[in-house]
C-alpha cells in the first residue's frame, strides 16, 4: 500500500512526458499531495532529491530547472539562438543531477543540438571541443549555421582561426 501511495505521489509531482521535470501544482493537487504525504510512513532513498525534500519538509521545488528546460526547448523549436548562450549559462548554474538529466534527454532526442549545447558549455575553451561542432555539422549543418549566427562576431572569428581558409 505504501509503495502504491509513493507511486501516486511521484506521478503527481513529475511531468508524465519527462519524469525529470516537476509539475506546476494546482490548489487541488496541493491538497491531494499533502494528504498523501501525511499518510506515507517512510521516505525512500532512491527517489528524486526534490521529491525527497518535499516528503521530508513539505517544501516545493523552485522550478528554475523547468524554466531552463523550457528555454532550451524554445530555442530548439523556434531556432532562435540569440538567447542560447544565456540559456546554456543558466543550465550550467543548475545542480549537477539536473544537468545530466537534461543532457541525456537531448542526447536521445537530437544529437546535433546536444553537441551544440556541449560546445556552448565549453565556449571559453572550445578549441579542445571543436570536434563537437564538427559532429553537429555532420548531423545538421543548418542548425549549426543558426547557432553560429547567434554568437558574437569575435567568437566566430576565433572559431574560424581553427579552420582551413579555402
Amino acid at each position, binding site marked *: 500500500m505504501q509503495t502504491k501511495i509513493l507511486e501516486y505521489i511521484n506521478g503527481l509531482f513529475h511531468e508524465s512526458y519527462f519524469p525529470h521535470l516537476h509539475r506546476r501544482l494546482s490548489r487541488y493537487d496541493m491538497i491531494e499531495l499533502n494528504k498523501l504525504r501525511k499518510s506515507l510512513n517512510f521516505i525512500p532513498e532512491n527517489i528524486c532529491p526534490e521529491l525527497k525534500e518535499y516528503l521530508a519538509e513539505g517544501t516545493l521545488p523552485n522550478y528554475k530547472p523547468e524554466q531552463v528546460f523550457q528555454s532550451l526547448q524554445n530555442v530548439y523549436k523556434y531556432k532562435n539562438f540569440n538567447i542560447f548562450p544565456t540559456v546554456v549559462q543558466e543550465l550550467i548554474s543548475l545542480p549537477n543531477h539536473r544537468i545530466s538529466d537534461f543532457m541525456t534527454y537531448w542526447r536521445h532526442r537530437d544529437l546535433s543540438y546536444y553537441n551544440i549545447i556541449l560546445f556552448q558549455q565549453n565556449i571559453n575553451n572550445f*578549441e*579542445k*571541443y*571543436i*570536434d*563537437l*561542432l*564538427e559532429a553537429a*555539422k555532420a548531423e545538421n*549543418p543548418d542548425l*549549426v*549555421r543558426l547557432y*553560429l*549566427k547567434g554568437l558574437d*562576431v569575435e567568437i*566566430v*572569428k576565433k*572559431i*574560424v582561426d*581553427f*579552420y*582551413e*581558409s*579555402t
Partner: protein
Amino acid sequence: MKVLDKLKLIKLLNRAIAGDKSALEEYLSIKNNLNPKQEDLIEEKPAKEELSETLIVEQSQPSKLEFVSLRGEIKDQEEKVVIEKPKSLSDLMESTKQNEEQSKEESKVSFKQMFEEEKIISPSELIQVEEIKETDEEINTIDNKDNLIKENDGTNKEINEEIKNIIEDKEKDKLIEIILSSKPKKVPDSSYDKPVKLEMSDNEKRAIPEQHKSRFSFLINLISQVIKKIKK
C-alpha cells in the same frame, strides 16, 4: 505796332530833329501810349530785413499777390522771395579767402579725426586681422556643425548602430560559410573520451614483478648460450 504807326513815328521824329517842338511832343505822347511802363503794373515792396554777413541770404517775405483767374476767383498765394545782394569786390575777396581757410581747416580736422579714429594698419596687422576673421568664421562654422551634430545625435547613433549591425552580420555570414564549408586544421581530441597515454616511469618499470624479469632473462641467456656454442 502797325507799319503805318511806325512810319508816322519816323516822320514825327524827323520833324523833331529838324526843330519842330510840337512834333517832338506828339512823338513822345504816341510812344508812351504804345509802351506803357511795367512799373505801373507791378508794385514792388521794399525789403526791410537786415542782410546777414553771408553771401546768400534767404528772405521769406510773404507777399500777397492777387491773381484774377478765368473763373473770377481770387487766390492768395505766399511766395518766398530770394534777394541776392551783390557785395563789393573787396568784400568778395575777403569772403573767398575766409572760405578757403575754413575749407582747409575743415579738411585738416577731418584728416586728424580720421587718423584718430582709424589708425593706420600695417600689412602684417591686416593679415593677422584677416586670419582672425577667418578663424572666427571657421569656429562659427564648426560650432554650427557641432550644433547640427548634437541635434541629430540620437538619430545618427541609431543609424550608425544599424549600419554596424548590418556590417557585422555580413562579416559573420562570411565566417560561418568558411566554418561550414571547410574542415578544421587539426581536430583536437576532446577530453571527455580522450585516450590517456600510459607511459611507464623508471620506478614503475623497476616495479615489474620478478617472475616476468626472470623469464625474460632466462630466454636471453638461452639465446646467448646457443649463439656462443655455434661460434665455437
